[in-house]
């Protein structure tokens, strides 16, 4: 047999073995476990099987299933895989310069799964991310909630919802980013921005009622409009608006529109959140915040403060953190949580802000964001305290499969950088599709 065929066969075999290994429960024993939704467990056990968490608890309270493979992780810290509620990994762009409102544009059609930013995010302990188009439009397109599996094609990273649709949100923005020189289709002022958005949602309401009135009669159905279809999903609460906004008055404009059209919304960046923390809390709207090492960079971020997280937490509003990668680097995501603590947030709140709080903002908290039986086996193994500068992310696991290991020289390159860290990943999976297809097959089509 020619050696290359042998190599291919071996590669496929090892994949099959990896998939089979999922059948055997794996118990990680002895680590400090931070489940997020419960108190930290000093001497803990995490048992995973078929990509799900079977059990989590203290060594004394958990019975490890017979036949389970045991991994000794004493001295380590295990916590849920990090969920990044706002990222641009994968090098994708959304809407173009033709119009300020483009809900029909999907970032799905542009993400490069071999882009090194995805490996770097894995190295940072990120297991799921909301990959967004940019903020230069009022509506710049559909976002994509991804699991950062080792994928060959974008489909390998998608999250499918119960109804079969692909999980994602809708990116909106206000403030200066979407304002351009008057004369073209883009708004020239804040009030015009809001007027254009209102106009569009009213169109979507009318489109929706036309469809409802038609009662399935093809004669009466309006012509399909991909943009309005998306906005109807938003009006129906099926798709969450992920809204870029900085200044205090822009934040209130989002809340005003949200009230008018009762859509689900997450406020992103919210540089001046501390000024309107009470209003944000009263609206019951969550905020996804970025920590940047210095304020400024543009006028509407002049008053950016690291204390936004603490101010919102104190006001009783939900707080998440995000990287906005490449604005900040996915490998420093835990650092953002630590800096939020430095600026007054509680430790527990900051840890939630990179896990369960973000999962909720994506509507995916039933399957990720904490270590609980039945949830996806997405977790990270740390060398120590998650909020210490001296701690390393040693391993990242997604649905029971290891996607990053600091002791592997190829993975280490993405963790630290170096010659070749900017090159696209070479995918080595072969003939049977991705490892995930094999797992799906092994689990009877279920993941």
């Amino acid at each position, binding site marked *: 047999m020619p050696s290359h065929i042998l190599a291919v066969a071996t590669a496929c075999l090892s994949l099959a073995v990896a998939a089979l290994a999922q059948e055997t429960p794996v118990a990680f024993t002895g680590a400090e476990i931070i489940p997020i939704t419960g108190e930290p467990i000093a001497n803990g056990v995490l048992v995973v099987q078929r990509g799900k968490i079977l059990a989590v608890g203290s060594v004394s309270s958990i019975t490890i299933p017979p036949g389970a493979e045991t991994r000794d992780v004493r001295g380590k810290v295990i916590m849920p895989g990090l969920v990044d509620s706002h990222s641009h990994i994968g090098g994708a762009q959304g809407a173009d310069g033709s119009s300020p409102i483009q809900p029909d544009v999907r970032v799905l059609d542009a993400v490069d799964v071999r882009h090194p930013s995805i490996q770097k995010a894995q190295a940072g302990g990120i297991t799921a991310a909301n990959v967004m188009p940019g903020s230069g439009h009022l509506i710049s397109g559909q976002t994509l909630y991804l699991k950062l599996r080792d994928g060959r094609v974008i489909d390998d990273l998608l999250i499918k919802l119960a109804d079969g649709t692909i999980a994602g949100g809708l990116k909106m923005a206000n403030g200066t980013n979407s304002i351009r020189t008057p004369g073209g289709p883009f708004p020239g002022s804040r009030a015009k921005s809001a007027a254009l958005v209102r106009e569009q949602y009213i169109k979507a309401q009318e489109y929706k009622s036309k469809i409802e009135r038609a009662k399935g009669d093809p004669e009466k159905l309006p012509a399909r409009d991909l943009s309005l279809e998306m906005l109807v999903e938003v009006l129906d609460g099926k798709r969450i608006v992920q809204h870029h906004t900085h200044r205090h008055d822009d934040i209130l404009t989002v809340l005003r529109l949200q009230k008018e059209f009762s859509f689900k919304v997450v406020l992103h960046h919210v540089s001046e959140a501390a000024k309107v923390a009470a209003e944000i809390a009263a609206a019951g709207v969550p905020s996804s915040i970025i920590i940047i090492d210095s*304020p*400024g*960079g543009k*006028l509407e971020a002049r008053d950016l403060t690291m204390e936004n997280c603490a101010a919102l937490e104190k006001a009783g509003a939900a707080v998440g953190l995000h990287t906005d990668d490449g604005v900040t680097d996915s490998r420093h995501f835990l650092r953002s949580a630590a800096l939020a603590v*430095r600026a007054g947030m509680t430790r527990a709140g900051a840890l939630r802000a990179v896990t369960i709080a973000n999962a909720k903002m994506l509507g995916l908290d039933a399957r990720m964001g904490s270590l609980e039986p039945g949830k996806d086996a997405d977790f990270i193994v740390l060398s120590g305290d998650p909020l210490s*500068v001296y701690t390393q992310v040693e391993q990242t696991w997604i649905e029971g499969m290891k996607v990053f290991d600091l002791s592997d020289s190829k993975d280490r390159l993405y963790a630290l950088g170096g010659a070749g860290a900017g090159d696209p990943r070479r995918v080595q999976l072969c003939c049977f599709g991705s490892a995930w297809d094999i797992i799906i097959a092994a689990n009877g089509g279920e993941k």
Partner: protein
Amino acid sequence: MKPLTMFAIALCAAATAGAATLSLAIHGETIHTMVGPAIKDGLILIRDGKITYVGPAAGQIVPADHQIIRAKVATPGLIDARSTVGLSGLLNQPQDQDMLEKSAPMQPELRAIDAYNARDPLVAWVRSFGVTTLNTGHAPGALISGQTMIIKTGGHSVESDLVNPAAMIAVSLGSSGVIRAEGPAAAKSPGTRAKAVAMLRAELIKAQEYAKKREAKDETKRPNRDLRLEALLRGLDGTQRFLITAHRQQDILAALRLAREFSLDLVLDGCAEAHLVLAEIKASGFPVILHPTMARANEDSENLAMDTAGKLAAAGIPFAFQSGYESYVPKTRVVLFEAAVAAGKGLGFDRALAGVTVDAARILGVADRLGSLAPGKDADLALFDGDPFEYTTHAIGTVVNGRLFADGPH
């Protein structure tokens, strides 16, 4: 009220009342002097902007007129070895961005001192994290973008804060030095790496010839004064060192080649691919002001690594940390944070702290005054409530020339 908050209020009161002549007694649970082992339960006395005592607190009498400040950890004031703060401002609007003049590819005559805004909020921002000294000036982005100066972060005026008004001449090799000029100057700008080096060589030779002509016995044959060539002459005679920004290994090697040809004294800047040419850098004897540890890896710097500082240390190459230049956000990085991440990625605490204090002072040529704590040195200090590099530690006060600032706690 939490002790930290109470302390912060005490500090604010002190800062408000604080005159430059205030005498301070800093009581530090740990004092890193950088000229010997850390002192436990130590004391630093400050009068008239200078340190008068550093040592154990036990048995040392604090004069009655000294205000007592307590800190868990005290270090020398942090030094940012390469910045554009004060030339590039917080707002990122045209009126506060003076770090790069694009009208010609080579303008060594541009002086940082003529553009520095001591009251830009970024100066106070970096000071609130313990930074007391900046080597700031013209940014990478033109073949020769101008000069840097060394300045304290007192925030009053450029004159009152100056340490060295003309520190280095900033040169950029690689893509940041190529075709960045605008307008009519674009045609005179280099389009390739090799052309950039050729233009530099030609300019340095012109400066050498200018120097010869100026020595002409017949005064009428002497050339008119040329500020641009005079600046280059100061580089050629070693009065001002060349700060060459080079990221790709071939650009680093080109810088070393230029230095050999013209006997230049260099400081290497950026050096994303230093890890590929450690032996060559070591052999040159030149120090490195390393790119920010958390810098974005793109274009020329796509191969940068967070553990390069550790590799420079292991190779015995002197280096310091910098905040660098950012066109977008963060409008300035904070050198404390950049050293911290390097500390956590293999460099370790001691060398990381040296890279923002004593080693930085040596590379900037100001170690006689700055970068360490000893009697007679400038009273520049950074005070913390824990390990300075831990993310959750606060910078609780910064002393510049004996004046206490408490903008934080940050």
